[in-house]
């Protein structure tokens, strides 16, 4: 089992007392499989994704990634985990505006110490980015930017891809095309995919789906 969450609790402090965002979450995901995490706005989907990414820590429970409980790891270890094992795709793309497309694509792979120019070339071609490698993010359309973000994540060949509403900022046709590409490339790399979405239509295209409601899996 690549990913296993056990009894995860997460609270957010508010003016009216702590808000129980995640309540006793148990979840698992095998290598090479994909899982959709659905739920309404505010149900805790993104929070759960951030916990798995080591961007935040739970108040209770365990998160086992590749057999290691990442809860309690220090900042440096978590950073190393994000560099080497995890790949993140955000709704807002979050490309690095000061780097061109080629540098953005290669960035995480090089950061992880796994640069692979041949693979990058394949990725760029598959993602339709070969002609825009010298452009900067602000010169790209939203669909192109998201393709760069996906390419950046997959270039590092992460074992687990975490995607937070990756097509949320795109129109339906572009979103479908981008998702198709992402799913096929994730499958080719053998990575597992945990994708947050509020779209049942998109969720149904993954191997499995779980629904989050008011901090609980239902």
């Amino acid at each position, binding site marked *: 089992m690549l990913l296993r969450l056990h009894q995860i609790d997460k609270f957010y402090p508010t003016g009216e007392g702590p808000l129980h965002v995640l309540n006793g979450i148990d979840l698992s995901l095998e290598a090479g499989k994909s899982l959709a995490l659905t739920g309404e706005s505010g149900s805790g989907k993104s929070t759960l994704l*951030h916990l798995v990414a080591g*961007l*935040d820590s739970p108040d209770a429970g365990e998160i086992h990634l590749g057999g290691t409980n990442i809860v309690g790891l220090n900042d440096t270890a978590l950073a190393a985990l994000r*560099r080497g094992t995890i790949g*993140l795709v955000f709704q807002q793309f979050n490309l*690095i*505006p*000061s780097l061109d497309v080629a*540098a953005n694509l290669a960035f995480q792979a090089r950061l992880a110490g796994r640069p692979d120019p041949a693979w990058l070339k394949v990725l760029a071609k598959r993602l339709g980015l070969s002609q825009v490698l010298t452009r900067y993010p602000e010169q790209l359309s939203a669909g192109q930017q998201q393709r760069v973000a996906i390419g950046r994540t997959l270039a590092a060949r992460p074992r687990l891809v975490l995607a937070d509403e990756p097509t949320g900022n795109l129109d339906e046709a572009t979103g479908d095309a981008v998702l198709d590409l992402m799913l096929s490339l994730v499958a080719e790399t053998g990575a597992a995919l945990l994708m947050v979405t509020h779209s049942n239509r998109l969720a149904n295209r993954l191997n499995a789906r779980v629904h989050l409601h008011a901090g609980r899996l239902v």
Partner: protein
Amino acid sequence: MVWTGLTALLSHWRRRPVQLAMLLLGLSLATALWSGVQAINGEARASYDRAAAILGQDRLAQLVREDGARMDQQEFVRLRRAGWLVSPVIEGEMRFGDVRLRVLGIDPLTLPPQAQQVDIAAGDQLLPFITAPGVLYAAPETAARLTEQATPPVRVAEGLPPGTVLTDIGQAQVLLRAKDKISRLLLWPDQPIGRAPLEVTAPGLTLREPSETGDLARLTDSFHLNLTAFGFLAFAVGLFIVHSAIGLAFEQRRQVFRTLRALGLPARVLVLLLIAELLTFALLAGLVGVALGYVVASALLPDVAATLRGLYGADVPGTLSIRPAVWAAGLAIAVIGTLVAAAQSLWRLWHLPLLAAAQPRAWARASERALRAQGVAAMVLLLTAAGIAHFGSGLEAGFALLAALLLGAALALPLVLTGILHLGGRLARGPLAEWFWADTRQQLPGLSLALMALLLALAANVGVSTMVSSFRLTFTGWLDQRLASELYVTARTEAEATAIRDWLAQRSEAVLPIWSIEGRVAGQPAAIYGVADHATYRDNWPILSAVPEVWDRIATGDGALINEQLARRQELGLGDQITLPGGWRASIVGVYADYGNPIGQVIIGIDTLVQHYPDVSRLRYAIRIAPGKAESLAAGLRTEFGLPAQNVIDQAGIKAFSLKVFERTFNVTAVLNVLTLGVAGLAMFASVMTLSGMRLPQLAPVWAMGLTRRHLAWLELSRGLLLAALTMLAAVPVGIALAFVLLAVVNVEAFGWRLPMHLFPGDWARLAALALLAAGLAAAVPAWRLARLSPSDLLKVFAHER
């Protein structure tokens, strides 16, 4: 509607108190330095005006001798008999103990009403004034300085300039040892018709029209222009902060502006509300700034007064008076500065499309076109500077050259830095290094204003410190040459002087007279010295240019040496003829360095001096003796003749005093330099602080991809240090160019001497360390905040809650 709109606009500052503090602080500091300099200049100019107005000089014409020498009292008698309504005045400098004062002697019975400074004729004051021992009238601070000295009775008179005493002409002639001599004749405004022409009655005299400014004001103009230029530079650096803070606040409120417009607030009302907001800030900060300016001025004025006294012989009181004009000017400059700094933002707001998408930080993102335009403007300015350097002349041209050079360099800085950062990015190895260089380049537009301010401050520091250090080095060498004698003695009377000469004859290697008279040479006030034919002068005198065998020509009475300032001001050179007091002429055989002397100086042979001016005072002497014996000889002189300590001074004592005066002269520029650097540091801090809040969307993805917050914080700190270091590197050549202009153009015009330039890399290293410290401190706070930022704040970037 207006109130609702204003509430919405002002709420921005409630949420961002640090930004408001930066805006007010920037404006206050800018105003403070400007007002401080203006307060100093105002005080000095008021003092010159008082001096110029004394005895109605600014309103009454005068009769003087063409050569500036004193005239015989008989001239007065002749003119009165010929029907001229004139009143005699004698003036000169003398020492009461250790207080040196200007003595003005007047005739109260013939003095025109316009020249009546003190109501001497009132009550029973006339008799004691005109009869021995006489009365000295002086301003309160001058009277206070005389309390410990042996003088005739002193009375306080408001309105007299400091450092001046007024007395009866008869008493003044006694005090100045100028029996039957007068300096000039004041003319009554209404003269009788039918009086004999001047050229018949007094052919040696010439009419001088009233002058409103006076010699002092003209002489010190360049000094005050220097100060004003520095004050303006500091003000401009402060405005960078203001511009940056206002631009940021406008950009952050762009959505609010759009909403207010969409809700029905007319653009005109919105702009007027923002102008009202800015004016309120400007007035508030202006008030604080002017008050701070007075503090700065009070701290600097004693040094400025000492400088003016040392360099120009101008007496300026060391205390400051509150002048409404300075307050008004300070508030006006704060308001004008704010409006200038906000003009671009207001213009953009006026043209803001109602439905255009928000572009965060558009204010800071200089497009390539804007950068190119800036580059062109920089090039034009630098070429203009080169043109002025080649073709221009005069002090105004010097300052225009400085302004074009500094502004051109500041505008070119972002372009230069972009080039260097591009190069850094190309040479970088590894993704993080590449990102670091590229990201630094992207931050440049937001930081460029602060960096330009830093460049100006650093260049000013490099330039001024190079100028001062070059001056110090030259000055120290010059002192060694000029003060070659081991002891300097001043006798109290001619009889004592003769006795001292006799006493020293057997006890020293040489006794060299330091005798001089004062007068006018080539229309300028000057002192004429006689020197003995001695190796002391041949071996040591700091000659800049001379004909062959110059000292032989001086010894034989066949020529005169003049100081550099007289040569430059009057464009005199070797071989030119000058007319000396008394009307005799001499050929210029050499020019020598004479730093720190406000007036012209001429050196002739001692015999020639005595021949032309038999009444010359013969009280001062330089003594040559083996250095080891100087101290005991000085003690012997004091014991033998009962001379006060200040009448026998050794070489080291004079050198120490001269260097002290020198250091004090440049204290003011040093303090202004440090303050300007402080303001630039603050500009950097303000920019980094405000930008740091907008950095998270750029930093969070890198953090998410596997960098720790601490690592990112170090990179942020390194970025600040790198930019400061690059700016310092750019500032060095600009500073050297600035020093060259100061030494070769401004100093020559302002003081009348040109100095060789020396370079002091050690000073630059210290300044670089200071700049890095300031930049490090400015970047440390945001970096520290980033290192301690909670992950949830970084996650907001991805959760779209920002």
